[in-house]
């Protein structure tokens, strides 16, 4: 297709503002008369809140309000299920927000947050996803599922016995990936206020303003038409700004005090206010015939969902669907699981479950190539998807599968320098 503007190296409109420091990020916007919000977070991974005493904090000059679970009209939010409290009275992870302090200055708010006394009743916690799967372990979300197994996705294709019979070489191996943080450069920040129309306005950095609006409206009992979420410049997101972080807490404080509320996370607070990439344990068994063709694959994938559901079902589904890699394998058996634990909750992060499996399936390819005495490039050339290929879910790839072109372009670069 002949195009002129599409396909050209147009300069981004936002480039100059960013280069010259004129771009407004949520940390840069303020209103006269604003107060500052600071969140009190649980230091325990699993507990009930028996009592919160705010007397001492409220006595501090400059403190405007201290709010907790009882002050939230509808105390829940969540992308798939509303299983996450705005302000928790039942703690499922370290960092769960328990209270929010509003004060005239940030310094006062931080000092007062230390004076909020929370009486916790500690409960046994589980941190190992395989242990959490055991039926005798206390379920963290009995209202969602009777055990901690939030989700299981099986994929069955072909016949495994037939597949293994065809295999001349079999590689069986365990792989593990770690918890990681999005580490976007701009920690969560926002400004929330009730404007002259009586509407709740939240200016923030998010990945989905319309979702935020719905969750704020739900939690505070407002109409969608009374809530405006305006996205300012976003300093990186990578999936870490999909769940609600401070949006509802700040809006709640603004609604209760009728003062503009400014909140900005420190880096440490940021680590506790958004999701993590799912750590995964992956057991892989892959077989190939002498001619270097993949014939069978079995995989078991366990993803640590942490304390809340977030996107875990979709993430582990994506892991299963992509578990073979971009290769045709006629006989496949895959089981992926998302499991609740008392670790920080896992959610969306660039790659979304399809990032972890790359470690496993591409390592298997190199190990098979070594056994078969063919090159890593060669084994990929013999198995990769092309137009007309069928995936493990039985989907036929009808067009636009140019992996052959990608590999052709990579091939000349497969040379290394000398050891020193």
């Amino acid at each position, binding site marked *: 297709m002949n195009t002129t503007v599409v*396909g050209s190296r147009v300069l981004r409109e936002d480039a100059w503002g960013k280069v010259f420091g004129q771009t407004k990020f949520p940390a840069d916007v303020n209103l006269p008369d604003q107060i500052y919000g600071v969140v009190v977070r649980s230091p325990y991974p699993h507990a009930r809140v028996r009592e919160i005493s705010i007397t001492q904090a409220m006595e501090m000059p400059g403190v405007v309000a201290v709010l907790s679970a009882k002050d939230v009209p509808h105390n829940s939010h969540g992308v798939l299920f509303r299983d996450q409290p705005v302000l928790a009275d039942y703690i499922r992870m370290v960092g769960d927000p328990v209270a929010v302090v509003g004060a005239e200055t940030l310094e006062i708010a931080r000092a007062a947050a230390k004076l909020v006394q929370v009486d916790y009743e500690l409960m046994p916690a589980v941190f190992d996803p395989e242990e959490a799967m055991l039926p005798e372990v206390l379920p963290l979300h009995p209202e969602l599922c009777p055990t901690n197994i939030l989700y299981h996705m099986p994929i069955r294709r072909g016949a495994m016995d037939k597949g293994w019979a065809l295999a001349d070489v079999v590689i069986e191996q365990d792989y593990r990936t770690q918890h*990681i943080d999005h*580490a976007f450069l701009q920690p969560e920040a926002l400004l929330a206020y009730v404007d002259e129309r009586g509407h709740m306005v939240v200016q923030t950095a998010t990945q989905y303003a319309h979702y935020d609006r719905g969750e704020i409206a739900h939690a505070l009992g407002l109409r969608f038409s009374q809530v405006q979420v305006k996205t300012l410049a976003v300093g990186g997101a990578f999936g870490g700004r999909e769940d609600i972080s401070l949006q509802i807490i700040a809006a709640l404080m603004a609604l209760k005090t009728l003062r503009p509320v400014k909140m900005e996370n420190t880096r440490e607070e940021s680590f506790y206010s958004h999701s993590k990439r799912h750590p995964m344990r992956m057991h892989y068994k892959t077989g190939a015939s002498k001619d270097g063709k993949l014939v069978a694959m079995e995989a078991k994938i366990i993803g640590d969902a942490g304390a809340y559901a977030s996107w875990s079902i979709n993430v582990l589904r994506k892991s299963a669907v992509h578990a073979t890699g971009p290769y045709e394998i006629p006989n496949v058996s895959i089981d992926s699981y998302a499991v609740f634990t008392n670790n920080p909750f896992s959610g969306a992060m660039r790659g979304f479950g399809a990032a972890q499996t790359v470690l496993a399936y591409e390592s298997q390819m190199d190990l098979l190539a070594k056994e078969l005495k063919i090159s890593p490039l060669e084994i990929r050339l013999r198995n990769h998807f092309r137009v007309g290929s069928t995936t493990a*879910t039985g989907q036929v790839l009808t067009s636009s599968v140019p992996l052959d*072109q990608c590999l052709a372009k990579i091939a000349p670069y*497969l040379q290394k320098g000398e*050891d020193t």
Partner: protein
Amino acid sequence: MKKRGIGIGCAWYGTGYGNGFPDVSSAFVEIHDDGSATVLTGAVDVGQGSNSIYAQIAAEELGLESQDICVYSADTDVTPDSGTTAATRQTYNTGNAVLKAVRQAKSRLLDYAAREFSCPTIEGIELKAGYIGIKGDPSRRMPLADMVFKARLHGQRLISAESSTARSTPVDLETGQGAPYWPYAFGSQMAEVEVDTETGMVSVLKVVAVHDVGKAINPTQVEAQIAGGVAQGLGYALLEELELQEGRIKNPALSSYLIPTALDVPNIEAFFVEEAEETGPFGAKGLGEPAMLPTVAAVINAIDDAVGVRITSLPATPEKILHALAVKKEELAKK
């Protein structure tokens, strides 16, 4: 000793929400008296440059320049819902919605222009380089602005609202069979590393990344997206790990939770392959997430190529590499 190795990684990625979940983007468009236009969409530009992509798509369709288009996004009082900026879906999904909306607003202009030019079908009208005129007859054209002005003076309003929905179906709950995503994006990367056998340190010397984008709407942004993905992939492969103790984060700071800095990122050669995705805007599909996927595999496979050890848990820290080298030495000694 410093030993060199190379590794390949390939990856695929089903873009969009998938599994039959309604994956819908919307856009509002208005073409103004002077021939410029405004696009309103809920899609958040998270820094990846989606607003620029929509400006290019709208400009292309209207025969304008990118700077003739105002894209305003992600303000719920003004813009329609365009779904999350996630799932590698905004160039494809919202790009499609913008294109549909522009075409709808444009169709009214074409109707009006066809009558003005005494052309019995809008098929005979084209918008090009700021002009609207008869296809094949360069003598019969006028500035787009003049035609829009005339049309508006006669009561025409060149506004539109459109939505675009990606295709996918839920998979079977027992067999996982189905067509859960469309389109899929592919990519392949190679990494060259140098492993210090004394310290276990891995230096990544070079990454070559080739990604399937359908159509590169903005090649500079494609290259930037790939570079960012590779950098993030290197962090995942070699550096980043949240250290937890009973659910508590032991390293909640960028001084102890290490992400790649400019000094850790090697020379990256970014290439793209253009094989049009017929359902995408001008053939485009998304690149956001795929860009970081193959890096981990390329690095881990390169480490094995360099020193003959297979790291099976991320990140591949110097400790893990030294341990694997020691185990390997022991095994060799036994033989």
